[in-house]
C-alpha cells in the first residue's frame, strides 16, 4: 500500500504518530498546507482525502494508507485553479495563511452541493439539491476561519465559481 499524494505514491511513515499534515510538510515538502491551531479548530490544514475535505492535523498519516490525498499543490497542478483565480478577483484573503485550506475546502464543498448534501441552514431536507445561497456558503465553510476577516470576499469568490459552473 501507499498514500497517493497528488497522484504520486508515497510510503506511509513507520512512526504512526506522524500526522498527515506533518508528512505533507516535513517529509514531502508540500508546505502549501498550513499549520494553524493543530487541534481541529481552524481549518488551515484542510486537504482532500479520496476527494472529501478533512483536517490533516487530526488525521494520522497511517490512516491515509491506501487512499488518495489532494493538497493545494495538486489542485493548482494544471495552472491557476478557478477558485484560486476567483479568490484573487474578489480579495478572498489578506495574509493568505488560511487560503490553501479555504480553497481545498471550497472545492470539496461544491461537490457536496452537487451530490445533494444538506447543511444546518438547508430549509428542506427532503429536497434533492440545495441552492447555493450566501447563507449556505457561510454555514458550509464555517470550519475554515480567516483571522484577517476576508470572509465576505471568500463567499463572493465561491459563489462566483459556482455560478460560472452552473452557466
Amino acid at each position, binding site marked *: 500500500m501507499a498514500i497517493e499524494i497528488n497522484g504520486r505514491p508515497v510510503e506511509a511513515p513507520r512512526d504512526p504518530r506522524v500526522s498527515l499534515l506533518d508528512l505533507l510538510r516535513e517529509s514531502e515538502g508540500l508546505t502549501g498546507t498550513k499549520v494553524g491551531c493543530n487541534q481541529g479548530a481552524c481549518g488551515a490544514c484542510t486537504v482532500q482525502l479520496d476527494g472529501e475535505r478533512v483536517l490533516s492535523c487530526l488525521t494520522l498519516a497511517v490512516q491515509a494508507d491506501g487512499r488518495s490525498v489532494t493538497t493545494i499543490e495538486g489542485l493548482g497542478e494544471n495552472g491557476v485553479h478557478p477558485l484560486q483565480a476567483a479568490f484573487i478577483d474578489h480579495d478572498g484573503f489578506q495574509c493568505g495563511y488560511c487560503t490553501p485550506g479555504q480553497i481545498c475546502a471550497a472545492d470539496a464543498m461544491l461537490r457536496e452541493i452537487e451530490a445533494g448534501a*444538506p447543511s444546518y441552514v438547508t430549509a428542506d431536507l427532503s429536497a434533492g439539491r440545495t441552492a447555493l445561497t450566501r447563507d449556505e456558503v457561510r454555514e458550509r465553510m464555517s470550519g475554515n476561519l480567516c483571522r484577517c476577516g476576508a470572509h465576505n470576499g471568500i463567499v463572493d469568490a465561491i459563489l462566483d465559481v459556482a455560478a460560472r459552473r452552473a452557466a
Partner: protein
Amino acid sequence: MTPFDYSRAASAADALRLAGQSGAMLLGGGTNLVDLMRKGVERPTRLVDVTGLSREIAETPEGGVTIGAAARNSAVAAHPLIRAHYPMLSRAILAGASAQIRNMATVGGNLMQRTRCAYFADAAGSRCNKREPGSGCDALGGFTRYHAILGASEACVATHPSDMCVALAALDAQVKVLGAEGERTVPIVEFYRAPDDRPDIETVLTPGETIVALELPPSSVAARFAYRKVRDRASYAFALVSVAAGVELRNGRIEAVRIALGGVAPRPWRAFKAEAALRGEAPTAEAFAAAAEAELAGAAPLPGKRV
C-alpha cells in the same frame, strides 16, 4: 504524543480481539482521540483503527433503521433514509462541528467522544478528576459557561458535547455492542453512566467491548420534531444548550413526547420529567413552560451560569 502501535481491524471480531490487548484504544475518525493524545490526556499504547468496519445504513425488518458504527457523520446526515424517517438526526448532526470533522468522525466515535471541558484538556496546568481521579477539579470556581447544570457530581461538571447523541436520546436509539460474551444491546439512555466519584468512567462498556451498530426503532414522534441549538457563534461551536424534541398529537392532546437536552449534562440528557408533565396535555406555551420548569427544578447551575 507517547509511542503506540497502529493496526486496522478487518472485522468486528478482529476489533474485539485487538481491543482486548492492554493499553489498546479504538480509533475512528480521530477528531477527538488524536487531539487528546497530542495534548497528553489520552496515552494509548495501541490504536485499533475500526473505520473499516460496517458503515451500512439500512432498513430493519421492524421498520427502523440500522447504522454501522463506522458510518461517517456526514454520510448519516445526508442519507435518504435518515432524511426521510429521522430528520431530527440529520439536523442534529449538521448542527455539530464542521464539515471537515463530520466527514472524518464515525458514529461509534461520536458516541465515545469524551465528556470533557477545557480543564480536562489542559493536562499541563489544571487539576481534573476525570484525567486523574481524586486530584481535584479546577473548573469549580473557574470559567463555567459550558459546564453542566444537570446530572453532574462534586467530582466533575463537564458536559458531553455531542449534538448527534441528543437526537439519538430523543429517538430511543439502541447501541449494539460486541463483547467477549457476544452481542448485547444497550438503550442510549442507559449507555452513559453518572459521573459520581469516577468521572473517568463514562459509559457502561466493559474493557474491550466494541460498538458495532446503532439501531433506530420506528418513532411516532420523528415526524413532528425540532432540533434547536444555542451557541456563542452561529456555526462551528459547542452548544450552550441544545434541544431535540418530538411530539405526537391525538385529538389536540400530546399523546407521545420525547425531549432530550445537550450541552447541559455529563451525558445526552433525556428530559423524562418534562415529558411526564406534557403527556396528555394540550400543546400550549404554558404547558411547555411548565414542562421546562419541571425538568429544571433539579438543576444546579454553577456560579456564572443562569437557568
